């Protein structure tokens, strides 16, 4: 089982934030908004979403642009946009420690999606559903069990690896993002998706609920 730490509300000057640490990799995500949109960003009927991904070192390049696009496409379907017409929500994902290689972005994508969820909850942004992401690696050895939250070495050596994001609503799960790479067949993918679904539901029940409950207790601590 991977080591996981989630700390919501760690940044004082943003509306929502989250420090997400998994297997030694670390990301901090902030959410600012809903705020007034710039004239060119303004959408009359829905919210405009700005996602910025910053690497551990150096400046963002096309690698981060592709990550931004994947995260933005996912969040656009999750955030209830019509509640915030003519407004902007800004999501900034800053990687602090990332076990990454130029062509493998699975771990970073997974961390960014999960941390964005906690940061959006912390900011009180309305969402249609919860969502949970997980990374699954299939070892090259026949009959080996699936590896959840693998290390970069395990991903590189794997037969295939998959980033699966499920939306969760009353125990009903739907795939909202899937990035599969490697060699696999449809039957294998079915097993992987089923296993990922169980993993996502477990994280939703055991981690997401706890974090949200403790955040609410902190927010209303003056009541007790």
């Amino acid at each position: 089982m991977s080591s996981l730490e989630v700390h919501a509300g760690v940044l004082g000057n943003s509306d929502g934030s989250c420090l997400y640490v998994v297997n030694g990799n670390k990301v901090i995500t902030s959410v600012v908004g809903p705020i007034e949109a710039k004239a060119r960003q303004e959408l009359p009927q829905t919210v405009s979403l700005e996602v910025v991904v910053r690497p551990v070192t150096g400046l963002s390049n096309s690698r981060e642009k592709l990550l931004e696009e994947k995260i933005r496409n996912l969040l656009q379907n999750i955030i209830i946009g019509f509640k915030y017409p003519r407004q902007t929500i800004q999501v900034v994902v800053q990687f602090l420690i990332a076990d990454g290689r130029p062509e493998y972005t699975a771990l970073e994508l997974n961390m960014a999606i999960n941390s964005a969820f906690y940061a959006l909850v912390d900011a009180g942004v309305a969402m249609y559903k919860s969502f949970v992401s997980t990374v699954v690696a299939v070892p090259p050895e026949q009959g080996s069990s699936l590896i959840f939250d693998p290390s970069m070495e395990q991903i590189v050596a794997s037969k295939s690896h998959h980033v699966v994001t499920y939306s969760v609503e009353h125990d009903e799960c739907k795939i909202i993002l899937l990035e599969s790479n490697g060699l696999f067949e449809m039957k294998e993918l079915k097993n992987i998706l089923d296993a990922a679904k169980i993993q996502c539901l477990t994280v939703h029940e055991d981690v997401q609920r706890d974090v949200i409950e403790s955040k609410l207790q902190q927010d209303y601590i003056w009541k007790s």
Partner: protein
Amino acid sequence: MELKQTPIPLPVLGRVQPRLALSRHLELGVRPNLKTPTEFTNISVDVLEPSGESIGGSILRYGSHTRIITTLALGIREDGGHLDNDASGTIYPILEISRGRVGAPTDEEMSLAQKLFELIKINKVIDSNNLRVGPLGTQIESTIEYPEEEDELQTKRYRYVITANIQVFGRSGPLFDLIWRLMMIALEQCQLPRVYQEANDFKGSQMRVAVRMRGRQLVKEDVGIESLKFDMSNKIPLVTPGSPRPSLLLCFKFGVFEGQVLSDIEGEVEELSVDSVFYLIREENSSVIRHISVQGKAVDYSHLVAALAMSGAAGTS
């Protein structure tokens, strides 16, 4: 006063209410671009002959409007030693979608180029060993001689760097599948020129490093990258015979609209209306899948199975 019903032409409805337009079309069993829900648009790809500084390329024709051209250019860099021990190589794409304006690359252009870079490497399309520059030749007068083995005195090793310049004209929908097909055929036909240095580099007062004779060959102990030249008359294929052919990796795009899978989504109405878009890369004549990327509201396993079946039919046709 009598109110008359105003008929709205379908192209106008498509712009005002794209989802409604698509829904109405699908009720009739046809899509706004007049394809059936499982139909793929014809694609033809021609290989471009190397010319000038290009070492290859291809041109893709998709439907009646979309044309994509790629040209491959070559460079050389020093080998990174243990940093270059990956089994697979890649290319560096620069992509431009012509929209009648100039300026910085758009997000779509950057994302497509990056995705191509990543997937070529992850799918091991190019064997990293094939990007190693072989034994350097030496030009003596009008002939270039190549040693059979690399000279052990040559401490520096070099690698080819392939840059792909991709121009898209007449974009009519998501592009990645088209760019992938175009690039696989260009890479399959690509040939890398051997590398040599001129004998003049060894002579007279310009000589910078020790040179000695071995057999009938001049040997330079350490070669500067600036003195290397491509021998366009002596080439080796990038994809060696017997290794997997890149063009057998087929890429398809699909959309999901109200639970129905639509193949090869095309046109503004479909692009704006579909709930989810996904790409699938599979091996031809095999059930092995290499890549799936899904983004959207709600996709389930049955959609992926339906897409795979459609891609199988399209791949064999």
